């Protein structure tokens, strides 16, 4: 049965609110964990690479933080959305609602956390770099790109996990590996040649490069990298919605 748009809006907002309130239920620090987490990550990784690997990048901790925040959004979203249809089976057996809302509400909750952490990163960037207003448009563009890509990929993997439960394990095992072949600890420019082809297949490379370029942390960017990554992202986005829409009528029977 067709429902008014208002109903769908309410539904997505309610699901997001519930997801948000569930995340920090019965915790002391609650929302603060969203800041503590990337800061600790930045400190531990930063110290290791500054002291042992001796990377030569100015304001390395800020550089790192700006890369970690979008990566965490991406990786946590995927972690949480991959098994979401199976985890929420008790909702699917009640009525026929837009099941896309299950992964999308997780993305929205993570987006909120992401924006808070990004705000903190921005303060640190403003104090240490000379920003350009025009370049900030690239940041806005890359944020939309990040959300679109993460959303599309989440739809794809969450739908496929219902059929092939191994995907859940594949995602969880490959994300930490992917972290090191994404220009987070370093830039694409200084990365060894052997990694370069991998960057072209990994849209997170282009996204993080573009964010850093937009925030004037780096002064160069490879347009081919951004172009190829953007194309792959668009393909995954369309594929994600398509696959999800085609598989969702059969979810209930496969749980």
């Amino acid at each position, binding site marked *: 049965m067709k429902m*008014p748009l208002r109903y769908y809006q*309410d539904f997505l907002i309610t699901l997001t609110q519930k997801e948000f309130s569930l995340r920090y239920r019965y915790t002391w620090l609650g929302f603060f964990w969203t800041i503590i987490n990337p800061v600790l990550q930045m400190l531990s990784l930063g110290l290791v690479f500054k002291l042992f690997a001796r990377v030569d990048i100015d304001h390395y901790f800020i550089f790192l933080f700006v890369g970690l925040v979008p990566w965490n959004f991406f990786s946590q979203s995927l972690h949480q959305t991959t098994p979401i249809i199976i985890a929420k089976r008790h909702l699917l*057996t009640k009525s026929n609602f837009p099941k896309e809302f299950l992964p999308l509400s997780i993305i929205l909750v993570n987006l909120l956390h992401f924006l808070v952490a990004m705000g903190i990163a921005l303060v640190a960037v403003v104090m240490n770099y000379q920003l350009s207003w025009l370049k900030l448009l690239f940041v806005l563009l890359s944020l939309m790109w990040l959300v679109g890509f993460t959303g599309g990929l989440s739809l794809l993997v969450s739908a496929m996990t219902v059929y092939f439960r191994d995907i859940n394990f594949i995602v969880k095992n490959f994300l930490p590996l992917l972290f090191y072949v994404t220009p987070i600890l370093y830039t694409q420019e200084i990365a060894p040649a052997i990694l370069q082809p991998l960057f072209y297949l990994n849209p997170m490379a282009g996204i993080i490069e573009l964010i850093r370029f937009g925030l004037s942390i780096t002064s160069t960017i490879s347009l081919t990298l951004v172009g190829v990554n953007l194309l792959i992202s668009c393909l995954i986005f369309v594929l994600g919605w398509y696959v999800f829409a085609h598989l969702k009528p059969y979810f209930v029977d496969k749980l």
Partner: protein
Amino acid sequence: MSKIAIKLSKIGKKYQVAHTRNGSFWALKNVSLEINKGDRVGLIGPNGAGKTTLLRIIAGITQPTIGIVQTFGRAVALMDLEAGFHPDLTGEENVFLNGMLVGMNKKEIKQKFKQIVEFADIGLFINAPFYTYSSGMKFRLAFAVAIASECDVMILDEIFLAGDFEFQLKTLEAIKNLQKKREITTVVCSHAPAFIFNLADIFWGINKGIVASKKKRDLLKEIDQKHKIWTTAFKVDYRSIIK
């Protein structure tokens, strides 16, 4: 002329036994039926006959493998006590989640919240997480939301018995009230004669995926026979004990 509420045309549903490679069966075979607006339908059949599958298809929760389903208006299903609730959310939060799943918007739920809580009558548990609820409380909350949802079609699968005697009477009255006042269409499935005969006057028997219309007289005969077996099996002559 009565309007059609539910129309099934040559429905079949094939299931793969979950997570096995070979083991598929047809839960429903070639089912065609029409239910008019305001009809009170009772569905009878043994476990594994296909009752739940049929109700799930009518509710739109699952799709038939072949055939066409048409349901007109808002259908609400009460089939599984945990369905549509989140175990970690409180009763109050769950009213909103469940209310949306059965098609109400936020404003509607806010307006009816007091009425829902009053009907469920679960006291302080409305603020406790759902996983702490007993089956009876789960049923009370699920039923209270369903009753408030202003649905056109109500689908009820054997869950009445989770409520205590008083609440069972209350649910019976509430459904009969909706049938009379708002002329909602009901499809009820129960092994308890009191519910079937109070809530339905059109009967469908279902066995091994095949649905056939049943006469009330034949059904009563069957139940009478089962009742005899049941009472002799228990051999409790409670009247003489009371005396």
